[in-house]
């Protein structure tokens, strides 16, 4: 209804779009304080203990068509099939297998529209959700038939279908959303901005961070999203963050402080349904100028763990009260696909059976994927934890990452 009323002046907005986002002095790295055509929520949790509230806004004066992927990195034990994050979560002899499967969905945002949803329940599309009124509780309602939330607001989509699908209580991973045109092809609107709030269900403790925005340039409307600084801005060369030494005692609260770092691969192979093999180096500098590092740390598509779980617990408070940690993707090449996936290589020949992207890019021997991430501090005292998430800083950029998508 509002669309109908507004539509006559939509025509005038076309010229505006360019004016709003055109700007000189282009940079080519990702950001957490500007809107982009691709937004990455590196840490999304719905595991029954914690849940996540996603906020996504359209910063433009046009409709924003959005295609999103949830990437569930919760693994399953190789034999028992139980949920796991790491091998130690499984029985001896089992390994934790991560598939990094993507679950995708589409959204339509009206001009300047902010929306929100709870990850575990998703949100239902309804023909009309009445606006809140003064003096009344402003709250979403639970739709028992679909298990989804119905919230006041304009949801464009098929009535009583999922505006955002429900994910359930067994999810840990990331969310990537990119802007598309009305036909579903990648579109460089730079209209999206996002925020995520992770909440501990038992205590209500919340952590909030800004989604990583990837601005776009000249977008090729195929199924390859190239984070090469030309089509989309490039992922950082390094990510840097400051964290107290693992297990250090906070002088004000006497709480024991621990930091969880989350890294998401910039390269995603949704079309090939293959997890991206990532190799990074952690280098920490403490307040005494002493250095500790973790070399050639490998994971598939996603890493989320406490610093103390890194090999050797090298960033513990016994080594330093405060650490500045730089995470650098490996400079060596790696096979993205094929039977040697994750193995080092010097050419595609080293990656038997490697695949090619929908846009014709080789997915064989390529520089190791880049990473983006978020950190979260936990103040532990008396069996309870206070939480605070924060974005990582970035240094320079690298132009090798690619996201292959399944639609249109």
């Amino acid at each position: 209804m509002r669309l109908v009323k507004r539509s006559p002046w939509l025509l005038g907005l076309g010229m505006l779009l360019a004016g709003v986002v055109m700007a000189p002095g282009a940079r080519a790295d990702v950001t957490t304080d500007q809107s982009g055509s691709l937004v990455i929520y590196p840490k999304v949790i719905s595991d029954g203990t914690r849940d996540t509230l996603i906020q996504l806004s359209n910063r433009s004066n046009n409709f924003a068509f959005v295609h999103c992927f949830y990437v569930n990195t919760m693994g399953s034990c190789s034999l028992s099939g139980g949920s796991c994050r790491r091998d130690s979560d499984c029985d001896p002899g089992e390994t934790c297998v991560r598939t990094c499967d993507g679950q995708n969905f589409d959204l339509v945002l009206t001009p300047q529209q902010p929306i929100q949803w709870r990850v575990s329940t998703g949100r239902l599309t309804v023909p009309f959700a009445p606006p809140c009124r003064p003096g009344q509780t402003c709250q979403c309602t639970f739709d028992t038939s679909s298990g989804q939330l119905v919230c006041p607001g304009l949801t464009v989509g098929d009535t009583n279908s999922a505006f955002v699908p429900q994910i359930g209580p067994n999810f840990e991973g990331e969310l990537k959303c990119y802007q598309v045109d009305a036909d579903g092809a990648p579109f460089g609107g730079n209209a999206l901005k996002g925020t995520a709030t992770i909440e501990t269900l038992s205590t209500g403790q919340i952590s909030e961070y800004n989604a990583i925005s990837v601005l776009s340039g000249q977008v090729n409307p195929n199924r390859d999203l190239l984070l090469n600084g030309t089509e989309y801005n490039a992922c950082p060369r390094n990510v840097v963050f400051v964290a107290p030494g693992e297990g250090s005692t906070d002088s004000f609260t006497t709480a024991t402080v621990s930091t969880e770092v989350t890294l998401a691969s910039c390269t995603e192979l949704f079309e090939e349904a293959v997890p991206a093999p990532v190799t990074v180096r952690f280098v920490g500098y403490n307040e005494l100028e002493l250095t500790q590092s973790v070399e050639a740390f490998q994971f598939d598509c996603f890493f989320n763990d406490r610093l103390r779980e890194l090999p050797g617990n090298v960033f513990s408070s016994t080594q330093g009260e405060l650490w500045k940690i730089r995470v650098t993707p490996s400079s060596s090449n790696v096979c993205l696909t094929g039977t040697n996936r994750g193995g080092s290589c010097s050419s595609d020949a080293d990656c038997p059976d490697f695949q090619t992207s929908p846009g014709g890019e080789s997915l064989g021997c390529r520089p190791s994927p880049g990473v983006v991430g978020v950190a979260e501090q936990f103040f532990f005292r008396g069996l309870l934890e206070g939480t605070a998430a924060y974005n990582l800083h970035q240094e320079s950029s690298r132009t090798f990452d690619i996201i292959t998508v399944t639609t249109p």
Partner: protein
Amino acid sequence: MRKEDRDMDGQRKSRLVFSLGCLVTALALMSSASVAQKVTSEEPAGYLVFPKIVVDPSGGLNGTPRDTVIRITNTDGNNPRIAHCFYVDGTPRCSIGGGLDGFGACRTNEDCAPGGICAVRECAVINFDLTLTPGQPVGWRASEGVTTTGLCDGTAAGLPCSSDSDCPGSGNSCVQLGADDFGRVPPLGPGIFIGELKCVQVDRTTNITAGPGTPVNRNDLIGNASIYAVTPADSTVDVQSYNAIGVQAASEDGTTQGDTSMNLSDSGGEYAGCPAQVVVNHFFDAADLGGGRTVQSDITLVPCSEQLELNTVFSSVLQILVFNEFEQRFSTSTTLGCYRESRLSNLDRRPGQESTSIFNVNVQGTLAGQTVIRPVLSGDGDPGNGILAVVEEFHRTGNQRRSAAFNVHWRGSKNQADTVSY
């Protein structure tokens, strides 16, 4: 005074009157050579001013709950029109203490915590947009604003709702306005609000991130406001109405103006200039109109110039002439910031001293009076010193207190522009 004395008096004055008449009339006419468009309380205009909006659902001001119903109509029966509106908060508030409503609203310093000053200090502005379909009349209660999307039918016909459950009575349903939804208006309640509403006819908002639309050269809006005082406790249903003051755009060609700064001037301005003088006919305060009916008048003054959204308050000096039925003249002066709502007797006297005011019948001796208010001009018109006003009469008969509002008269055209920017 005997009739003969009066004639003699007239004779003595004749020469003076002759010259004075020529002089004043020449000046008046010089200023009243006005343009086709004008500041008007009865013609459609591109810029509407509602000088007085009162919200006091709890009756904190005088014990009787008060509210204001605002009506705005698009008189263009063929085209939808957009209005960008501003509420300007002119509520006197305490510098210390919660005042009458817990949020600082007050009448005098006595309503504040010790040491607190009761004054209009914030002049906060809230903006919203109205999208009016062709010929659409809309209205709302200022205390509630428009936070719903439809109107009830059945025995609750016309009451606002978003869903059936919002409609009182049995079997009544909520009919969605759909394409006739004219937008969302923020409520001014709970608590006390005294202030003004200003609405500018703007173009289709082509850049909502850049803010409101730009004024257009059209005159399609009319409006009026009804201020209620209702309480079943003493069977009071008191309603007063006045027409919104319309400031007409000089051109009606439908083009969009260059920016969101509106020049109000009869000399090439984008809108008609504000008048040089405000003329008010009134009964002197405490006058007995017969039948045990005594009367008192309140005047609300608002500036023509506004720097809305800049939180800028500038002050103007107002010169006031008062005439009674004996041809006698008195004068006083006062100041106007962003808003002034005052009993006439408090323009020159503090609360408690009203009986010695030149607006009091005990000073003037006659029932009817004429007051001419003239802003003292200063500056270059940005801001200017123009004023607009509306007057309320409060009649008391025994313990019954009823009121009526009416528009004032304008005279002349001042040779200084006013500027409204947002």
